[in-house]
């Protein structure tokens, strides 16, 4: 195909490059995750990739779309990254397979494929899993520092595919996430500062493993900001709102509301800040709109974490704000040059 109309030059960026860059940025978090939680995530990742390739090929074929260009745009990888980090590393194999299948079919292709999905596919898949398999989704592998066991690759493999393991007692290596732990403790009358003294937290009163993974995500996210794979409004708006909210409530009542560092370094907060809410397709597109969108998600996450039924609320917060995108876009259009200020 020959270009018929100007411009005849391009900065050589492409969707593929953007997506690969996001993958690259997720690597530090992946290695940290392996270090603290074992090799489970690599098996989940491989499973997710295979599922993605199969489901996407079938869907593209059904939709009569060219398979090769759409399969190699690597947009599905983002969905995989978003979902794999959200499920327990030793969850049964069918959890990730059904999650990815649901995300790709219902989150992406039924709406028209890349660029047309109103909801974040990864979060749609996660919400589906959380509602369908609540037990499997909350049995998190404990970090080595907490459980004292280190699962080998073979152990993880067995656990994922057979659901049992002989070398170590299952109930010793899995447990609630720090977020869950604190929330449950609160409901039984234990204050937050007391919960923070438990075994799950290190000397800085931040959770083992989780904090490191979150920091790794932060580093990868900074790389994405510099390489312009994501826009600064998302993480800045999200983290700023989160910090302000948690600081305010913590100052108001430190017994009930966890400190800022706890909120920032537990759960999938940094994953959300840099990898989930930055999905451009399902988020607002105006500069102001992105900021509002990100802040809205932060508010909802904080509300769900503190007063909701689930320990972590990122998926629902993202999905709810996805619905607000058209109206945010409508009312945040920037001033065009030459028009009144």
């Amino acid at each position, binding site marked *: 195909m020959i270009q018929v109309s100007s411009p005849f030059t391009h900065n050589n960026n492409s969707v593929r490059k953007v997506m690969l860059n996001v993958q690259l940025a997720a690597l530090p978090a992946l290695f940290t995750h392996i270090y603290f939680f074992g090799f489970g995530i690599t098996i989940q990742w491989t499973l997710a990739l295979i599922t993605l390739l199969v489901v996407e090929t079938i869907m593209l074929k059904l939709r009569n779309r060219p398979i090769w260009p759409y399969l190699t745009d690597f947009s599905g990888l983002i969905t995989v990254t978003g979902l794999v980090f959200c499920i327990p590393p030793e969850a049964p194999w069918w959890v990730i397979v059904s999650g990815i299948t649901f995300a790709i079919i219902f989150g992406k292709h039924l709406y028209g494929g890349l660029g047309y999905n109103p909801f974040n596919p990864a979060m749609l898949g996660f919400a589906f899993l959380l509602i369908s398999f609540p037990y499997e989704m909350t049995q998190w592998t404990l970090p080595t520092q907490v459980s004292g066991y280190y699962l080998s690759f073979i152990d993880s493999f067995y656990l994922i595919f057979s659901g049992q393991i002989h070398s170590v007692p299952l109930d010793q290596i899995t447990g609630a996430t720090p977020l869950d732990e604190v929330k449950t403790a609160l409901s039984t009358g234990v204050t937050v500062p007391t919960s923070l003294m438990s075994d799950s937290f290190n000397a800085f009163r931040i959770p083992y493993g989780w904090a490191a993974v979150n920091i790794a995500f932060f580093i990868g996210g900074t790389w994405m900001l510099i390489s312009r794979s994501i826009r600064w409004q998302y993480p800045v708006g999200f983290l700023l709102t989160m910090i302000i909210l948690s600081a305010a409530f913590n100052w108001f009542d430190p017994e009930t509301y966890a400190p800022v560092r706890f909120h920032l370094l537990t759960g999938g907060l940094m994953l959300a800040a840099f990898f989930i809410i930055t999905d451009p397709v399902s988020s607002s*597109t105006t500069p102001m709109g992105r900021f509002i969108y990100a802040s809205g998600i932060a508010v909802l996450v904080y509300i769900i974490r503190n007063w909701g039924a689930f320990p972590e609320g990122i998926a629902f917060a993202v999905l709810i704000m996805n619905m607000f995108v058209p109206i945010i876009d409508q009312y945040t259009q920037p001033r065009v040059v030459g028009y009144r200020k």
Partner: protein
Amino acid sequence: MIQTLSALKVSLIKWFARFYPMAKRNLYHFHGGIFPQYHKELSLSHPLKRGIIPKILVLPLRQHLGIRTEAKVKVGDRVLKNQCIADTKKGLSAPIHAPTSGKVIAIEPRYKPHPSGLKKLSIVIETDGLDECIDNVLDVKGNIPNDPLALKEIVHRAGIVGMGGAGFPTFAKLPEKPGIVKNLLINGAECEPFITCDDMLMQTHADEIIKGAQIVGQALGIERILFGIEDNKQKAIQAVTKACENTHIEIRPVMTVYPMGGQTQLIQELLGMEVPSEHHAIDVGVLMMNVATLRAIYHAVIHGSPLISRFVTISGLGLEEPFNAEALLGTSFLELAEMAAPKQPINYPLIQGGPMMGMALHENNVPIIKTTNCVLANPPEPVEPVMPCIRCGECMDACPINLLPQQLYWHSRNHEFDRVEKLKVFDCIECGCCSFVCPSHIPLVQYYRHAKSAIKEIKHKEAIAKLAQKRHEFKLERLAREKAERDAKIKAKKAAVKQKTAQSASTKGSASAAAAAKAAAMKQKKQAASESGTETVLSARDNAIALAKKRAQAAKDSSKKTPQIPHKPTQVTRQKTIEADRQMDKNTKPSEAGTEVPKDKSSTTDDASKRRAAAIAAARQKAKKSAQKQEDLHEA
């Protein structure tokens, strides 16, 4: 203090830009912008070529924005250099002059650099190589005019148009009164990649550009002259600074970013103000001129020579020895490209202008025209397939107008043109920044161009429909008015007749009857516009009888010819009515000669038809005018 702070800020941003290149967007005063690969060294590394006289010159009759000129020469005529060969007085245009001496061998449609790729009427000159010239063809005295009208006149006769690419006749851009323009901005930004003709011109003819600016400044009474040059042209800045010594022209090196050379962008950068949408720069007291235009003005005003040549860059990745040339207008693109040692045969489309806003040619053998700044020979590269928009917003961050290109694209694609217009598509300058950065390789600008033309067409159709409706309503109204007038007249006449009958019955004297008849005649005279002098005076009674008879006759006739007397507003039935009336006239004349009633009627119809003709003429005039306006809009 403030200066050191801002200098600190600039150096901080520059340091930060090493890690984050887009930080450079904070170093200038308009939104967005891109940093493409410039490739300017290609053509700058070879010397300027001059004095190329090709065998054939093709001069299209329209090389500017406006209407076409008319050839003033005939096939077979010998023309001299600088001789005016085409001009028109019909409207906005710029005359065309012979670039060298030779013979006119044809006046026929030839290909010209135009997006349509169609042949346009051109004068073809076979050069004789003698370069015989008419000196001071514009008949100037060589002094600087002190009044804008004088300058406008010379600039018009010299055929000067905006040489930066727009091609708007320069004289039309100049105000008629001094003092309107506060700031004259000299545009030496040249932000398009590959193009270096303005750079070369500034390096070699800085003094002429500066003199041109002084001429414009003096004639228009401009207080402040600013010269904006991108900071990647250090040699040009040096040359210009030297030429500006002892003048009050301020040299302003500006950041190298595309599209710094855009009028809106350079005004924002140099003056920190925005031109309101749908206004021209002149409305805010700003006049911007390209360096090449100013040099042409200098030559016209001081030496009386018209615009017959221009600096052109011949460059591109497909050429071994790219160069700049002062080329005669009408020189073939292909001929110039062949002179630059092409790496491979030029069997691909050349581009007029730069890679960002240029235009791929349908036919390579087209002439250099007044607006051609670059002949670009970039061999075609494989184009990445277009992917769906992922709404990443790169386009929005790059848009110098701060539009939402991605939403514009979305609605353009879905043909929701009302939304597209609401998103201010007509403020788009088609600079191509959005397409340049799009990771999905969507030809965004192409979508906006299509949307713009589609909206224009819709508006045009709407205007036509509105006009037709207006005309129809006017016609209905006129017919109703005519009918009312006619009815009123008949009523008046009836009343007059009644009165007369009453009067004649009461007096019964022959003398008084005569007087009454006279009075009645007078009244009738007043009523009827045209009246024959030889009018038989009848008694009112006879008159009444005659009237009754005539009416009966008329009723019979009309019932024969037209079943009912139509008052319907169709042309055909109207014609029939008129005919019937005339028939009536004929029928009544022999028997009742002198009765002025039918005459009166016919005169009304005559009158009406005259009025109708006048109305039609007026409507036509109006339609013509609006059509002209539409065309003007289209041109603009």
